[in-house]
């Protein structure tokens, strides 16, 4: 009880600080200088319709490389922690009730559609809201649906690991190609910028986002697979 009281007092102090922040805040009337530069130069410099995509992939592309690295580390550590204790292949399937005809048939219809939706989202990342991370999460939810329909589904680990490794290496190689053929590391202009608004525009952004989407989807799917295949505590 004393602990609850002390925690409430500390949080009340924090709430006072937050209240001061809220009362003293008014939204800007015009874009600040960084955002103004981004808004004015996105069409001719990067060629992407989605300004957030242009920031994430090219202007702040190094942060995205760091994020992809952190995700890779997370998936690797989760796989390492949960490695021992794999369920044997011929384990008796007696303790789980069957998941139902509707779910199994429906998942067979829906999984290709979900994969298609995920691929659409990251291929069109420079034209509409979307991009590699959203598309990767949608790809992982296809794996999730497979797990829900059949809790003993065994994933093709080699395929997932190969996709993840190849996408990661290709992403860094594209960054180095930007260094060799265009302005700097992860510059997207070594492929032609094309016409503003086309699918094949914005240089290397569709390719980079495709690689990021595949890598993120493979990573989340392998995290789910590690969790599902570890047999109990």
């Amino acid at each position, binding site marked *: 009880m004393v*602990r609850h009281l002390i*925690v409430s007092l500390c949080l009340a102090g924090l709430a006072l600080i937050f209240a001061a922040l809220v009362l003293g805040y008014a939204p800007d009337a015009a874009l600040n200088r960084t955002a103004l530069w981004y*808004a004015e130069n996105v069409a001719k410099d990067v060629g992407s319709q989605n300004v957030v995509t242009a920031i994430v992939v090219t202007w702040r592309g190094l942060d995205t490389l760091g994020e992809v690295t*952190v995700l890779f580390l997370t998936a690797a550590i989760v796989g390492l922690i949960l490695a021992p204790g794999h369920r044997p292949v011929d384990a008796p399937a007696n303790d789980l009730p069957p998941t139902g005809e509707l779910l199994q048939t429906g998942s067979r219809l829906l999984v290709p559609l979900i994969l298609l939706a995920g691929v659409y989202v990251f291929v069109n990342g420079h034209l509409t809201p979307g991009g590699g991370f959203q598309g990767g999460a949608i790809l992982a939810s296809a794996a999730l649906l497979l797990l829900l329909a059949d809790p003993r589904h065994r994933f093709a680990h080699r395929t997932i690991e190969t996709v993840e490794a190849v996408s990661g290496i290709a992403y860094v190689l594209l960054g180095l190609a930007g260094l060799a053929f265009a302005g700097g590391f992860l510059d997207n202009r070594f492929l032609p910028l094309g016409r503003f608004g086309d699918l094949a525009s914005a240089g290397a952004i569709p390719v980079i986002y495709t690689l990021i989407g595949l890598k993120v989807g493979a990573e989340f799917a392998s995290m789910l697979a590690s969790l599902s295949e570890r047999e109990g505590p």
Partner: protein
Amino acid sequence: MVTIALVAGFALILAGLYGALTNRNILRMIVSFTVADTGVNVVLVTVGWMPGRTAPILDAAVPVAEAAQRIIDPLPQALVLTAIVIGLGVTALMLAYAWRLFGATGSLDISKFTELKW
């Protein structure tokens, strides 16, 4: 509207912190951390909003020539995108550790883990 969103975000942070500090079950603490994480993201996106302007996508609705007058600040959105994905990674890591802790000691109560106390 900005005030409403800011207050909601800060209140989520406070609720998440309260849950993380007063619960003893590890899984409950992780759930509260997730709520606090969502609150932080709401506050960050709210700071980038400007009245009378629209999303930073230059399609048929926002022509390129008037982009600088019609779109909101795109930078907080790019930062929050990264933050959400990393938040999921950290949650997955915390859950993996909680699983192994339960396997090693058979309990999820954090007051039972006293090996590091003097």
